[in-house]
């Protein structure tokens, strides 16, 4: 699995995002093994795979939260400073919902940049930009609401606005559909399509395989390595599905003990 996966769109231009040969191992177990792919401006990509397939690990590695054993991540052709162009929306379980942050406060946090500043106060330009971001996700009317009071879909829209406020080119959304009802999921997709049309690169991790074709332009199938990458209605061949969800149980005959062993190391 060392070949690079590319979805082939915009073949002429340079890819905005290049993930190259990324390997992450936890105590000998390879959570990610030589993961490589590229994405261009205006790609809306679903990163799919079973629980424990390494989707969050991939995002953490890309966001600089998880050291990589090998590999590189380039955004805009840079590695060291690529984080300036990358926004991350964590899983909802990682947020402290007891903390009474208002919608406007949360989006304003995206305006800080990476530089440390003492006594930081938002400028008039920051406030204007936050308003623009909140209007893009149709949450400006809720600007004084507190995050804990919002529905799952509204919360995700605020985090998307925060990513916009960072002026990032690449958005990483980890399981943004979880805890969001179907109608709100559709609305989220609509918003993400608008951002895609602006040229953003959007990757969303999801373990939910329903309606993939309606949600994403491209699907990256991940099960510790990249099993397939391309349009949703093309990538799901029986072989890929086996690799994703049934490889060990189905294809390897009499592999009961191996199968179990593999899952245990999997955690």
């Amino acid at each position, binding site marked *: 699995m060392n070949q690079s996966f590319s979805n082939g769109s915009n073949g002429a231009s340079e890819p905005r995002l290049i993930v190259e040969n990324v390997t992450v191992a936890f105590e000998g177990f390879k959570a990610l093994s030589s993961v490589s792919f590229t994405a261009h401006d205006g790609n809306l990509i679903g990163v799919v795979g079973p629980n424990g397939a390494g989707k969050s690990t991939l995002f953490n590695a890309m966001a600089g*939260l998880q050291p990589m054993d090998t590999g590189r991540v380039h955004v805009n052709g840079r590695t060291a400073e690529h*984080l300036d162009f*990358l926004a*991350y929306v964590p899983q909802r379980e990682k947020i402290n919902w007891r*903390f009474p*942050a*208002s919608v406007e406060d949360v989006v304003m946090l*995206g305006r*800080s940049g990476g*530089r440390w500043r003492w006594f930081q106060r938002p400028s008039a330009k920051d406030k204007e930009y936050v308003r623009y971001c909140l209007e893009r996700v149709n949450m400006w009317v809720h600007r004084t609401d507190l995050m804990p009071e919002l529905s799952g879909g509204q919360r995700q829209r605020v985090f998307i606005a925060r990513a916009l406020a960072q002026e990032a080119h690449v958005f990483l959304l980890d399981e943004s559909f979880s805890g969001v009802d179907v109608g709100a999921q559709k609305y989220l997709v609509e918003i993400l399509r608008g951002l895609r049309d602006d040229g953003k690169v959007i990757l969303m991790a999801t373990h939910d395989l329903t309606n993939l074709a309606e949600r994403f332009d491209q699907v990256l199938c991940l099960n510790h390595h990249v099993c397939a990458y391309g349009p949703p209605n093309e990538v799901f061949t029986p072989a890929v599905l086996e690799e994703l969800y049934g490889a060990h149980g189905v294809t390897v005959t009499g592999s009961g003990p191996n199968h179990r062993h593999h899952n245990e190391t999997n955690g």
Partner: protein
Amino acid sequence: MVDALLDPFQYQFMVRALIVSVLVGAVCPLIGGYVITRNLSFMGDALAHGVMPGLALGILLGFSPLLVAVPAGIGFAVLIGFISHRTGLGEDTSIGILFAGMFALGLLILSVSDSITVDIEDILLGQVLGVSQTDVIITGGLAALVIFLLAAMHRQLVFTSFDPIGAKVVGIPVQAMDYVLLGILALVIVLSVQAVGIVLVLAMLVVPAATSYLLARRFVNIMAIGALIGVAATVTGLYLSYHFNLPSGPAMSLTAIGIFAAAALVKRRVTT
């Protein structure tokens, strides 16, 4: 009535006590906002007991106890963070070990130093009527430092408290911010101990901020209204302490809890 309010201040010690009470009442809820939204109650209680050896050592060596307790408190905070990050033990287990160990050490030091007249009750329950001129100056300096630090790093502390992963991605040193917050908590505890005592510092850290959490929505308002409630509690407690000859810690704590009970009867915070 007016006499009951003004009479006490013909005495210098009451003026000093009032200054310390106002400072303690105002500063505790500022850090208290973080304590109640980040589940740091147990940590706060442990830190309060953890400064005991520092206070005892200060008394033993003849320094102002506050001067010794400040580095002791910060050292304790760093040690808790260190143990919980380094061992496989849960954080509350690490806190429990240090809590008990430090408090026992403090009691031991005090019991050995029987040549010096120390009222252990004052350390445990607070005696704001007994603060010295030096204590007032140190308390004022510590309060100013706490307010300065909280204001200077407000945005970073808020981001870290709400979304630690998001904060890390934009380049905020999240782990360092956690230590900073514990350090500030240690400063607040040390400056509060003389007024409310080791055992009841927790009341001032948690109760006014919790009351304010019921009444205000935004975090900065929770801090500000909490500070007003805190001052109301400590100053009322001071009067009760003076007129009825009560230890100041219980008087201030029960006043704060009375205000909380009144607020809890009329308001309930809307949650998810």
